[in-house]
């Protein structure tokens, strides 16, 4: 697919929000070609040049496109659940202009060829910019180190065993030490597997429902152990999708000690609690499981205080066959790309978090920790933008998703915050008015 080079586009009457600079106010933005040419309160004094296409934002927010640091794209291997095409279409509809895929594809991303394959296939879509993490261990088996150096040269942004913890302490120690050699990031799914053979959070609800539990300690123990090894090796470590109150405390302590540690959480864990499992709803079967209301509130507080650095969708598409099963047999994971912005903006509406701080965790923070030149509205940067109305309400209808998979735990829920337009490299790739993905 060849794309006509975008010309000059002026976004006027916008509420410009750039978390990188802390600017939140009325302004204008000009893109020329693929780049941001200028941004400021008044660029044109009411009369933009004639050769410029004008987009009147009508007071709506204009922010850097979202950087989603944790998604599962099922290509190669399970294209019936999600392909790079459907995943990218879902992403642009969600305002996501950059995303990072986990290596748990088939084949697994533990060699350079697969990194390059995904990059080349994603470029063809010419939509959201797709990066991947490499496997931390060969075959995600948790035994032997993967070729991190060569994978990074091919473009891998960090190393993880995806939805599996690197459980063996000696293997993690060596993975951290080896990664520290090159200053690579290790991303852990922090869950002690020997404690995690249940299907939902351990507690009163799991007891009432007769479902086997995954205790909060599975996450807590793994995090505490990991941070000892991080201190020992001096590596850069990122804990994915933390879900418990104590996890926030543990990360806070590690940061206070000066360890090179970051973490993210997913909207599931600040918007929902274990009650969402309700009547054995398999769409609410997630990994880690939804926790208690106290945990949820602590996660919100962690986001507000900045202990939790990033919000990632943890997009985990599954087909109907994987979810229309008895709860214990259903797959873990929820679709997240198309609800990422709206559910996150919920933190602004209901938890009194500033909109710019919500966006910070979705843009410049993940970009900075992954070393990506993205997530900011500065002159000369690539024009990756999202225009949205933070207040407009809509109802999540999973059947309308562009993603091939409809397994959203938010299905049927009202949310506030609507993506109006998504721009990548200066080019409009999604518009809510036409509904079209160009």
């Amino acid at each position, binding site marked *: 697919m060849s794309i006509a080079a975008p010309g000059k586009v002026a976004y006027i009457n916008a509420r410009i929000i750039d978390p990188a600079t802390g600017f939140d106010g009325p302004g204008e933005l000009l893109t020329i070609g693929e780049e941001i040419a200028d941004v400021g309160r008044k660029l044109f004094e009411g009369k933009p040049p004639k050769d410029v296409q004008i987009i009147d934002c009508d007071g709506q927010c204009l922010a850097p496109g979202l950087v989603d640091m944790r998604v599962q794209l099922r290509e190669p291997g399970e294209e019936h659940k999600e392909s790079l095409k459907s995943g990218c279409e879902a992403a642009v509809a969600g305002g996501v202009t950059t995303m990072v895929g986990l290596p748990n594809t088939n084949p697994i991303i533990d060699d350079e060829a697969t990194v390059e394959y995904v990059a080349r296939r994603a470029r063809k879509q010419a939509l959201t910019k797709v990066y991947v993490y490499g496997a931390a*261990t*060969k075959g995600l088996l948790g*035994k*032997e*180190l*993967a*070729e*991190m*150096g*060569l994978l990074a040269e091919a473009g891998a942004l960090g190393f993880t065993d995806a939805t599996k913890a690197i459980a063996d302490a000696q293997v993690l120690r*060596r993975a951290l*030490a*080896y990664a*520290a*050699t*090159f200053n690579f990031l290790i991303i852990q799914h922090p869950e002690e597997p020997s404690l995690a053979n249940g299907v939902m959070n351990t507690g009163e609800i799991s007891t009432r429902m007769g479902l086997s539990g995954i205790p909060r300690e599975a996450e807590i123990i793994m995090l505490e152990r990991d941070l000892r090894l991080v201190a020992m*090796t001096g590596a850069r470590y990122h804990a994915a999708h933390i879900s418990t109150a104590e996890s926030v405390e543990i990360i806070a302590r590690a940061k206070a000690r000066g360890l090179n540690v970051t973490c993210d959480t997913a909207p599931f864990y600040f918007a929902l609690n274990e009650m969402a499992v309700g009547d054995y709803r398999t769409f609410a079967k997630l990994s880690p499981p939804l926790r208690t209301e106290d945990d949820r509130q602590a996660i919100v507080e962690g986001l507000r205080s900045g202990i939790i650095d990033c919000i990632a969708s943890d997009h985990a598409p599954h087909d109907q066959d994987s979810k229309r099963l008895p709860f214990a047999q259903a797959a873990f994971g929820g679709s997240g790309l198309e609800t990422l912005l709206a559910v996150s903006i919920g933190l602004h509406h209901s938890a009194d978090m500033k909109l710019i701080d919500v966006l910070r965790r979705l843009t410049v923070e993940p970009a900075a920790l992954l070393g990506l030149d993205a997530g900011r509205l500065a002159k000369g940067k690539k024009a990756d933008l999202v225009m949205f109305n933070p207040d407009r309400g809509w109802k999540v209808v999973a059947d309308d998703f562009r993603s091939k998979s409809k397994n959203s735990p938010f299905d049927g829920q009202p949310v506030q915050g609507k993506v109006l337009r998504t721009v990548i490299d200066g080019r409009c790739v999604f518009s809510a008015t036409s509904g079209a993905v160009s």
Partner: protein
Amino acid sequence: MRDQVFPHRHLLGIEGLTPIEINHLLDCSERYIALNRSTHKTTEALKGRTIINLFFENSTRTRTSFELAGLRLGAHVINMQVETSSVTKGETLIDTAVTLNAMHPDVLAVRHSDSGAVKLLADKVNCGVVNGGDGSHEHPTQALLDALTIRRRKGKLNGLVVAICGDVLHSRVARSNFHLLLTMGARVRIIAPRTLIPSGIERLGVEVFTDMAKGLRDADIVMMLRVQHERMKGSFIPSVREYFRFFGLDRAKLSQAKPDALIMHPGPMNRGTEIDSDVADDFERSTIREQVELGVAVRMAVLEILAQNGAAA
């Protein structure tokens, strides 16, 4: 008569030796280089003496080097192989030592796969013991032959920048070289992936690098270590090809070192793993064959001194 400068019964390691002692061993070695190059390569310095090569771990070059050194000094040399010895029948290390001691050897050259095993044995015998390599601990004659090679090429050890690259974690060669080079006033850098850097290594006085280009910058000596293949299958290093890409010595990485930097390797080399053939075979700069040659001279000097010190005791 006991050697005045090096009066010790054993040579178990470099750690603890003084610069004067090290220089003396190198000076004594120097005398044998010409002899080894001559047609008639034998002296009668240790005529009638007995040297036993006791190797609990496979070795070809070190054992051969000790054997030749003993023969050229006129001594009787016996090689004891692990496979044929009573060790495989269940005899303990100390029993072996006591048994051999009863046969009145003059010097034992011992290699063992366990760190500290050579000292354990040395404590139980009356003769001199030279450590031919114990576990990941020390390999003193290798460090001496490396030092002799450097001294002959560069005229000194003091002030040189020596980069030691590779599997430092498991290397007895590296440890003996740290001690020797630092004692003699050289600057020692190590370059390796973090998985192969032993903890607390900075406390020994070496500088640690994880990037070859940075670690090799302006080095006078580039000393490569062998990486054993069993370490390369994922436990310490992902693969051979990744190791060679980032830590193998090739022309491009070597260009960071001084133009006249020497390339050293204790052998046996893994071409294409830690060193490119192009570099290993560089006639001007690679000292790999010279190291082997000088090894015999160093071992002659050590065996002679230990045999004499033992007789004087």
